[in-house]
Each structure stands twice: as structure tokens, then as C-alpha cells.
């Protein structure tokens, strides 16, 4: 942490940046858009304090280096109505010169999938240039984890669980639905402001089941696991190219919910309930955060941004700098991003109806 290492790091950074820019300019050739002297506004429909802010702040300087002309990239926060406000605003914008982009999150996708009456936006109108995935891990206190019979959660079916829940229609519906499928009796305590508060509730012994997204699990729960006060139960898994749920590459040693479900009495990995869970899992995790250009963006602009994000991914140090901040997850561009968008923003009417009814019955939440 001395000054000498700083200077060296800056020098290496500059060389890397120069190389990235150079290769990109060669790649984009004559048909990209040039953004020199311009300011790119990146709208994040959340406050400065959330996970999306962290994600955008990570990418913004890298994107700035990688775009032709090295425009300034500023992250603009537009919180309100759980991201619906910012997304509705973006829907109204028309493509101008490629200086406006939007970052959506699972919390933007869920109201869209559930046809929340406040949603005035349509993902089909936008142009995806990056899709970032993540995963999630559920964990238990050691005494309850010890009751699990190998992969089977059957012995836990008689226990009373308490879970700090951020909101019935949020990402939390993926874990709560999963636990219900396992036959666990989980009572949701509402009014938690972020998953960090949920973890604190677990640490205080008030909640006895919890989940965190991968990066928060790594920084917040791994030390608890090492100290013996928490035991991982299962991950939500990851998707392979064929769309099957497989072990999460970040946590290869932790079984997936699918494995636990197969081993547990009364839990089925097929049928209406499973399909609904899987659909919302895909919307919430493997395709959680995406970057869009507005409706009407030119093919040149899309190609330019795609190339820029590819250049960011191709940085020699990308694995190192992103691993700690975003987790080891695919950062998808081009075709892969398009596929992620489609799987993340489409659920079958049956799956949607199932979840809408389930929310109504379990929480009394009406979405109409």
C-alpha cells in the first residue's frame, strides 16, 4: 500500500486502457458512433445506495475508457416506486445520439412480469447491450442445518422458520417460494430495508433462515460460516447453455435447490409450481442486471456499445477486478445478452398466474 505500488498500478492501468482503446478503435472501424467530447448518461432507477449503484459505478469508468472517443460516463440516479419511475421515464425517451443508457435490475423485471398496473415500460422496445448474472445462497443456523438428512430437507418440515423479507413481490419471492416447495413453514417478517438487514436479523438470532446474493454472501456470510454460526443450505443454481439448472460456478460445493428438492418429500422438480419458480429464478438471478439503449437505437450504436462492453470484458485484469465486486458470473453481450433478456423477461401465462394467485393467497397482495 505504499506509494510505489500505486504508481505502478496506475501505469499498468494506463497501458491496459490504451491497449483496450486501441484494439477497440481498430475493431469498430468506420461504422461505429464516435462519442468524443460527449457525456453518456447512465440512468439507474434506484438510489445511490443500492446494489445497482455498486454495479453501475464499477462499470462506468471502464465503459468510458472503452467507448470510442472516451466520453465521460455519468451515473444518474432516479429512484422512485421501486424502480418503476425510472423505467417509465426511460420508456418515453427516444434514441438521439447514443448518450443515454439505462440499467435495469430484477426489481424492474418482476413488476413487469407480474403486470403491475404502474408499469408503463416494455422490455421488447429496448436494445440490450449487456446482461450481468448473479446467484443466491440460502443458509441456516448450525443446529437446524444439522437436522438435514443429507440433501433432504424433510426433517425440517416441522420447524418454525422466520425470514426477514424485503417485500412479497421483490426478488424475495424466489427464496420464499422455494422454501414453501420444500414444505418448510417460513414466516416472513416484512419491512426489511435491504438484504443486509435480513442478515443482521439472522446474526441476532431473530431470523433462522436467510439468503443473500452471491457477492453479499461472499463478503457477509462466508466469515459466519468460518466462525461456525451459519451453514449454507443450497444455492439457486446457474443455467447451462441448454437452459438447465446446474451447480453455481461460484459455489461448486453447495448443492442447488433442484438437488435438495429432488431429495425432499413432497417437492417436485416438474409441474406448474416448479415451472413458475424456475421462470422467476431466471428473471431474478442469471439475467438480473441489464444495460439498454432506448427504443429506436441504430444498429451502429448497438454495435458500438456491444464492442465497448466486450472490450471491458477482454481486459487482462477483468477477472481479477470484477471477481471481488460482482462475483464470478457471466457478463453477457451480443447474442448471449439477447438470450438472457428473452429468458428473463418472458414467463408463461401459467407461471405468472400461479405466482399472482400465490401472492394473493399467502400475503394478500393484490396486483390489480
Amino acid at each position, binding site marked *: 500500500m505504499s506509494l510505489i505500488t500505486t504508481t505502478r498500478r496506475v501505469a499498468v492501468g494506463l497501458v491496459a486502457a490504451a491497449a483496450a482503446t486501441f484494439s477497440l478503435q481498430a475493431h469498430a472501424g468506420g461504422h461505429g458512433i464516435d462519442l468524443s467530447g460527449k457525456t453518456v448518461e447512465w440512468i439507474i432507477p434506484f438510489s445511490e*445506495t443500492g446494489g445497482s449503484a455498486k454495479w453501475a459505478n464499477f462499470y462506468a469508468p471502464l465503459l468510458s475508457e472503452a467507448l470510442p472517443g472516451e466520453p465521460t460516463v455519468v451515473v444518474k440516479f432516479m429512484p*422512485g416506486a421501486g424502480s418503476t419511475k425510472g423505467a417509465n421515464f426511460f420508456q418515453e425517451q427516444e434514441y438521439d445520439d447514443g448518450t443515454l443508457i439505462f440499467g435495469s435490475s430484477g426489481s424492474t423485471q418482476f413488476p413487469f412480469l407480474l403486470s403491475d398496473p404502474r408499469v408503463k415500460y416494455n422490455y421488447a422496445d429496448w436494445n440490450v447491450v449487456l446482461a450481468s448474472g448473479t446467484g443466491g445462497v440460502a443458509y441456516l443456523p448450525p443446529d437446524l442445518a444439522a437436522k438435514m438428512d443429507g440433501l433432504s430437507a424433510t426433517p425440517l418440515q416441522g420447524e418454525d422458520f422466520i425470514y426477514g423479507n424485503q417485500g412479497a413481490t421483490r426478488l424475495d419471492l424466489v427464496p420464499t417460494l422455494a422454501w414453501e416447495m420444500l414444505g418448510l413453514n417460513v414466516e416472513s417478517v416484512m419491512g426489511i430495508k435491504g438484504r443486509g438487514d435480513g442478515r443482521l436479523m439472522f446474526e*441476532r438470532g431473530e431470523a433462522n433462515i436467510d439468503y443473500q446474493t452471491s457477492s*453479499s454472501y461472499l463478503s457477509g456470510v462466508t*466469515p459466519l460460516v468460518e466462525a461456525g454460526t451459519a451453514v449454507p443450505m443450497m444455492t439457486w443454481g446457474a443455467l447451462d447453455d441448454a437452459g438447465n439448472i446446474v451447480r453455481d460456478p461460484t459455489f461448486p460445493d453447495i448443492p442447488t435447490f433442484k438437488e435438495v428438492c429432488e431429495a425432499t418429500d413432497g417437492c417436485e422438480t416438474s409441474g406448474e409450481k416448479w415451472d413458475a419458480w424456475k421462470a422467476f429464478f431466471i428473471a431474478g438471478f442469471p439475467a438480473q442486471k441489464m444495460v439498454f439503449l432506448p427504443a429506436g437505437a441504430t444498429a451502429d450504436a448497438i454495435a458500438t456499445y456491444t464492442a465497448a462492453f466486450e472490450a471491458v470484458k477482454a481486459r487482462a485484469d477483468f477477472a481479477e477486478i470484477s471477481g471481488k465486486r460482482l462475483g464470478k458470473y457471466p457478463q453477457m453481450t451480443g447474442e448471449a445478452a439477447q438470450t438472457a433478456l428473452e429468458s428473463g423477461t418472458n414467463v408463461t401465462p401459467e407461471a405468472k398466474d400461479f405466482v399472482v394467485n400465490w401472492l394473493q393467497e399467502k400475503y394478500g397482495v393484490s396486483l390489480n
Partner: protein
Amino acid sequence: MDVIMEALPALGDAWGLILQPVVIGYLVLGVVMGLCIGVFPGLGGIAGLSLLLPFMFGMDPILGLALMVGMVAVVPTSDTFASVLMGIPGSSASQATVLDGFPMAKKGKAARALSAAFASSLFGGLVGASFLTVFILIARPIVLEFRTPELLMITIFGLSMVGILAGRVAIKGIVAAGLGMLIGTIGEGASSGDLRMSSYDLPYLTDGLKLVIVGLGIFAIPEIVSLLRQDRAISSEPQLGGGWLEGVRDWFANIWLSVRCSIIGVVVGVIPGLGGSVVDWIAYGHAVQTTKDKSNFGKGEVRGVIGPESSNNAKEGGGLVPTLLFGIPGSGSMAIFIGAIALLGSGQIEVGPAMLKNNLDITYSIVWLLALANVVGTIICIAASGGIAKLTTIRFALLAPFLFMIISFAAFQSGQNLMDLVALFAIGFLGLMMRRFDWSRPAFLIGFVLSTPAENYANQALQIAQSRFRKSFEDGLDYIFSPIVIVLLIITVISVVMGLRQAKNIMAEGDVQSGSKRAPFVMLLVVTGYIAYAFYDAASIPSFSRDRTFPMFVAGVCLVGCAILIITMMLKPETDTIFADREKSGEEADATHGLWPTLAWFAGLLILTSLFGFILALTVFLFSFMKLRARVSTAYAAIYTAVGLTFMCGMAWLLNRDFPPGLLQEYADLPWPLT
């Protein structure tokens, strides 16, 4: 012992990291930037840190930390300027400072109040850092003892401060606090998202009102309007008495109060979930309770400045515990701080449970950078206080438009919606009326601030307790009545009993004469009407939802209070204190300008903004206000307008913010800053 053996070398390493010239340089840079931003009311650490974020990526961790900590640390120091000089709470950390700091400024003792405040801030910061150096090693298990019932109990303790600040008619103060709580419940409920006093047709209210808007509205607007009507300077004395040395002496004479309030600040700051929103009120309450002669509180008692100011800087240190040890931000600026730390270097510092084990040196660096930033910031502030205090001798009509510009801009930043300005104006009007009829505004604000935690913790504690009781009766009892809860309960009861006994002597709003019956009675009826409607509105939420319980309970209690007040008003003669009305006698009655014409100026700014956007409206407003109201020459008015606009645009450009658009912007595509 082991712990200390590990801690000492880490502490040494930390000082080694800090005491490099380049680190100190970055720290001073951060401090200066923080002071510049903190001076403007409503723009706190969040705005400043967002400004720094783009530079954090890959920066050397210790340099980045020095810059950020320097900035965050001094916001509660520099916001004292607005609180003391203008009566505007610069941020939630200095709301209680307004109560006695501003009356001191009015008496021409601004420099004395400021330097007493800064000396307290500095001392609080140092006490906080020393306390933390030891406490941080054992903090984790202690913090984990604070479960939901304990958090609920602290919230209730905070609410009990209403007892001290209720004013001369206790029930009126309680109703004021209840009204604040009801305003705090507006929007989507946390439990099942049911709407209270709002609808999806008016999306603005569904997110609830922000503290910035309510704080500025309830305190700043009434003070600005009142001073403007009297058309004079803030200080009633043309000669400023009491230099900065006198303030430092005041602080030294009350050093034990300062120590106690600093400890209160660290301890409350340490508890995650409450943040610092109550700390200054608790410290103020403590200052009142431990002072023998209470008659000067609310009129310019220096102890009322020293208490809260000692606690609010110490609180920043305490707030590092949940932030660094649990990865849970105690405030909005701490949340950005966590995000920014991840960007530093190669991302090797990860806040959270492993912080102490892996990065104890960095942890200590942060604690002591914070203390050092306090020292640097305080020295700059004390040096500047004599000069800045002269602002209080300027004719207020020249300051007011500028202040209005700043608070409108700050209010707009909270939701980036024209409705932010409408809300500011509406709450400002409520504040004006509360001030006029002697309804306690501090009580209202405490109610507002603690409304959300009170509701959430009550609902959560109840739900978890029910589950425990299902397991066994003893389990449930153990959960609810832990030793900490019992101790807090006793403190709260004592504080309420003592507070109510003393409340009559403490006039947080100054002395107000009584007048006729009609106007105060109309005010009471309007308040009662709102509360009754809020009750009806909450009652119409389906009964299985938890979102209805809290507003119904609060509104129910308030309605009983209102009923008692109405009956009292009918029985008592019009000279009774319950009919207090500022328009009847004193400064307000003798004011040069009427209430409504003054208010109309600001309504005008609002209407113009909704039509032509903020910048165009501001141009018209600044120029015509200077020309017609302040009656300065055309050239003066033009220069004033130009300077004001340049300043506003410069600040927005620097912070990368937009201005409120109006109807015109719907139809025409204008270049920034007119957009």
C-alpha cells in the same frame, strides 16, 4: 488480552498509513470539499460522495479513504453554519442545534454560538474516536444484543423527548408529534405495500415524504418568511458581541456535558437501524435535564448548542461500527461509502464481518482519519466563523432569495420531481402555521423521523414475539423483556415524568402571547380534520394487513388529544396560553410586511417553475424580488440575479444534477440548464 495484543500493532500500522504527507493532503482536500458542500443546507454527504465516486476506481485505498472520510466527517460540522445563522437545519444531524443556536444568532451572539458548537464538535469527534478504538474490538457481540425489541425501545425513548419539547400545553405537543408520525406514514406501507393517504394516481406520495423536505419545510421556510416580513437583519444587535474565544470558553465550562453527550452520540450511533436521526434530540434532552436553570432553553442557552453538537460528530464515529463490522450502512452517505470502498484499489477491502480480522489496520485508519478530519475541519470553521457570522448583520431581504434558491434546489434533489417543490411549500405552510399558533415543531419533526422505525420495529417485534410465544411462553417473555429493554424502559419512564414536569419552562418556540379565540380554534379543527381523515383512510385498508395498525393507533391517540384540546378551548378564556397566536403581538404583529404577500412571492416562484422550469423562473424571481421587494437599483438587481444564476448552474453542473422542468419543457427542447 489477545485482542489487545493484536490491536496495538494494527493501531501503529494505521498511524503509519495516516501520517504520510500525501495522505494528509488528500484528507485536507476532502475536508475542504466537505465544508463547501455541507455549508449549503440540504446537501449533505450523499451529494459530496457522489461527486467523488468517479475518481475512486482503482485509487490507492488509503488515499481514497482519506478523501472520502475527510468529506463525510465534516458535514455535521459545517452544517452548523446554516443551523445557527439562518435557523435552517443543515442536515438531520443539526436539527436540535437550531433551537438554541438560532436565538443566539438573533441576539448578535452568532460567533460565540458557532465557536461553542465547533469546539463541541471537535471534542465529540475525538472522544468518539478514542472510545471506538477500544470498543470496536468488542462491538460485534454487544451490537448483536440489540434485537428488534431493544431497537423499538430506543425508538420509544427517542419519542419520549417529545415530553421535553412539547411546549407549554403538553397535549398540543403530543398531538404535534402524532401529526408528524402520521405524515411519516404517508405512502406505501412497509409490510404489504398498502397505500396510506396516497394513491397511484398521484405517484409522488406513494414513496412518502423525504426528511430533507420535511426538515427544511418545517424549520427553514417559517424562519425565512418571518425574518423577511420584519425586513431587518437576523441579528437584532448591529454590533456583534462575543468573539470566538468566548464560545470556546463556554464549551470548556460545560466540558462534562460535552463528554456525556459525546458518549451518547457514539453509543446510539453504533446501533444499526436507527442511524443518527435521534441522537441530537436525545443529547438536547439530556442537556435540558441536567441544567438547573432551564428558563433559557429555546431562547439562546449555550448548553442547548453544546449538547447536540458534541453528539453529532461522535455519532459519525459510532456509525462506522455497523458500516464496517456488519456491512450495514447507518445512513445514506455510509451506504455510498461502502460501495466506494469496493471500488478502491483492487477491491481488497471488504466491509463486513471479516473486516476486523483482515483489515484491522484499515479499520483503525478510518477511525482516526475521521478524528483528524474533525480537527482540521474545526480549525477551518472556527477561523471562518467570525467572518461568516457577519452574514447575520446583512439586511435579510438580500439573503432570502438566495436561501430560497438553495433550499428549493436541495429539496428537488430528493425526488427530482416538481412535486418536491410543492411538498416543500406545503410543509413550509404547515410549519408557518405551527409556529404562529405555538404548536411544537421539534415535536412534529421527532414524530416524523421516528415514525418509520417505530412502525417497522413494532410490527416486526410483535410478529417474532408471537412466533416465540408459540414455541413456549418463557421464550417469548425472554425475547421481549431482555435486561436491555427493562433498563431502557426505566430510563424512558423517568425521562417522560421529568420531561412533562419541566416542559412548561422550556419554550422551544420562544414566548408567544395569546389573542383571540377564532384563529387558533380554526387551526385545531384543521389538524383534527386531517387526523380524522388519516384514521378513516387507514381503517379502509383490509384488516389482515399490518399496514393499517400503526396509523390507526397513532391517529386514535391524537384524536383523543384533539378532543381534549377542543373542550379546553371551549371552556378557557381567550387569554389562556392555549390560544397562543404570534400575529397578535410581538415581532410578528409589528412586521413591516404581511404574511400573505410574503408567502405569495414564494408561491410565485413555484408557479413560474411549473410553467417555465426552474432556471427561467428563478431569473424572474430573483430580479423582481430584488427590484420590487428589496427595492435595490436595477443594476444591483441584475448583478444579483446573474451571480445567483451562475452559482446555481455551477453547483448543479459540478454535482451533475438537473433542475425541475416546467410545462414549457414539455413542448420545447431547450439546452441545459434550461431543460
